[in-house]
């Protein structure tokens, strides 16, 4: 039975190639769509997820990262004085205008943090030195936005607001979900770059690390009790709120998710059709097997084994193609993520899709009239 299943699959190479193509197309479509969705959701909350902070203190009513509101710096000291707070850092998030060296302006999001504080810093610095942020006017941007911002190397000079800025480093892989790239700099520089919205005695967020022996929940509770006019979220909570806003409240993510689900439906339909067609090509053989006395269970096993082989081989090829697509996306504006969990999930999805498609054929085969084998 195993031999028949394999041989029938590989015997007609063109048919097999068509079957595999259908499966690979379906899987790549699903991987790309879900990968895009994951990429988008990750991008919206990257700065929160990578902040190294346990808690985020935000102006009361601020729902998500990109709409931070400035509030009084004295809240920072209230936070510091709260039991359970091990470390607190001031953080700026605000929009500004970047003037390119060759002319033209771009909207940017300025992210200001205390260099050496260990929280709110950019990550994956591939050129330059993070410590150089301490230098006057030092800024770090992502290499994805070099062209957009009109810079190409460390040392390039620009203007942000009415202040000078100098590129001291490039990161790789820090995307902005909005059209405004992130520009990382020191807290002091950030205040300058975002005037007049930002005043000297203000900040946008306070990042908190809990003291040893204190849980984030406990410190959150303490902060809520002691610091007025702010909201306090755990890192995960603030990340989820930000993701939810961009993905579902704006509808952007819903559109991507809908596309992902459509990809799943289309994928299943494509696989069902190709496997069904491949089974119908061999319908006479199944009729012969029935005439020979094969039980329905025997036929199921042949069909399911073929489905599993198709799934495994299709998955292998799909993964190769998907890797290629994912690598290509790294250079573009839309990130496609394919974490290990997705790869594993896709494997089981491939098996499920192919077996489900085979079940459509099984119905046809088990209801097959074995007398058809007598027809010439």
């Amino acid at each position, binding site marked *: *039975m195993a*031999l*028949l299943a394999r*041989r*029938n699959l*590989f*015997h007609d190479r063109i048919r097999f190639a068509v079957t595999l193509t259908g499966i690979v197309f379906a899987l790549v479509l699903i991987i790309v769509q879900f990968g895009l969705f994951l990429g988008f959701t990750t991008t919206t909350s990257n700065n929160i997820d990578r902040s190294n902070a346990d808690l985020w203190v935000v102006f009361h009513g601020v729902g998500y990262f990109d709409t931070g509101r400035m509030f009084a710096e004295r809240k920072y000291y209230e936070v510091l004085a709260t039991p359970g707070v091990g470390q607190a850092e001031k953080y700026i998030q605000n929009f500004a205008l970047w003037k390119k060296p060759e002319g033209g302006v771009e909207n940017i999001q300025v992210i200001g943090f205390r260099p050496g504080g260990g929280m709110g810093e950019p990550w994956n610095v591939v050129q330059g030195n993070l410590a150089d942020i301490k230098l006057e006017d030092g800024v770090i941007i992502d290499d994805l936005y070099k062209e957009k911002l009109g810079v190409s190397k460390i040392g390039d000079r620009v203007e942000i607001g009415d202040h000078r800025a100098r590129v001291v480093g490039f990161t790789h892989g820090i995307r902005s979900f909005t059209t405004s790239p992130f520009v990382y700099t020191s807290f002091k520089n950030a205040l300058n770059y975002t005037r007049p919205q930002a005043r000297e005695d203000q900040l946008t967020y306070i990042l908190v690390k809990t003291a040893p022996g204190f849980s984030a929940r406990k410190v959150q509770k303490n902060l809520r009790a002691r610091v007025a006019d702010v909201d306090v979220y755990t890192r995960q909570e603030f990340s989820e709120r930000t993701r939810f806003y961009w993905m579902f409240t704006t509808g952007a993510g819903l559109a991507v998710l809908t596309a992902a689900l459509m990809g799943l439906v289309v994928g299943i339909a494509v696989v069902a059709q190709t496997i069904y067609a491949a089974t119908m090509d061999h319908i*006479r*053989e199944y009729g*012969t*097997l*029935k*005439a*020979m*006395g*094969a*039980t329905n269970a*025997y036929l199921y096993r042949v069909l399911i084994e073929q489905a599993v082989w198709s799934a495994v081989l299709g998955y292998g090829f799909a993964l190769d193609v998907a890797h290629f697509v994912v690598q290509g996306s790294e250079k573009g504006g839309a990130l496609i993520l394919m974490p290990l969990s997705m790869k594993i999930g896709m494997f089981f999805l491939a098996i499920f899709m192919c077996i489900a498609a085979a079940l459509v054929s099984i119905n046809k085969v088990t209801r097959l009239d*074995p*007398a058809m*084998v*007598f027809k*010439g």
Partner: protein
Amino acid sequence: MPTETTKQSGATLVIRARGLSKIFREGTNEFRALSDVDLDIHQGQLTLLMGPSGSGKTTLLSILGCILRASAGRLELLGEEVSTLPEKDLPRIRREAIGFVFQGFNLFPALSALENVALALDVRGLRGAKARQMTEELLAEVGLQDRMHAFPPDLSGGQKQRVAIARALAGNPPILLADEPTAALDSTSGRSVIELLQRLGHQHGRAVVMVTHDPRVLGYGDRILRLEDGRLTREESRGQVQPRVQHFPAAQAAANFTEDFRAEF
């Protein structure tokens, strides 16, 4: 399956049919393919089912092979009444008692001759070295020991049919049902196939039932059952048919029909 059967003329009765009828219904239309067919098939005999197209030969063969259900009547195979068995039990009957040989060979093109026969054993749960040995013996039985590893596209029509016969013999069934096995073959191949089927009946004690239009095989049959419009109209035994002829072009074979058969063809 029970092996005790009614004996008649010293040969064991393997198929007993009484009052078999088959009606096909499509919407409000009805077509009566078989009407009240009674027949007995014995072990060790080659029985030919003949008749014009649409006379019900293949329908009768399908019913005898438990592939189709009769609309009415009783069918016993090797003493077991199969006409009232549940549908789910019929594959067992086919595995244990019946081997099929088809006009179009119905071999699996992706499998070699050896693997085609092995598949029939696999369906019966026989695998491994013992199954391989049985497979090789079956192919040797039909004279294809040198072509075991050939694939169907590389075999001649006669060789394909012999592989199909070897496959039908897997499981050692007491009944072989053949649907026009020589129709797609030239005279030489056809003769070798019909001689093989006859030998399987006479020497190995099987009941071989063959549907055929081929006048060349008349001389090989032990009994000829004639169907017309779904009814059994004539039955002749060996003494009444022309003797088997060894070298016989088709035209000369036609000239040697009995008066009745000549009138038919």
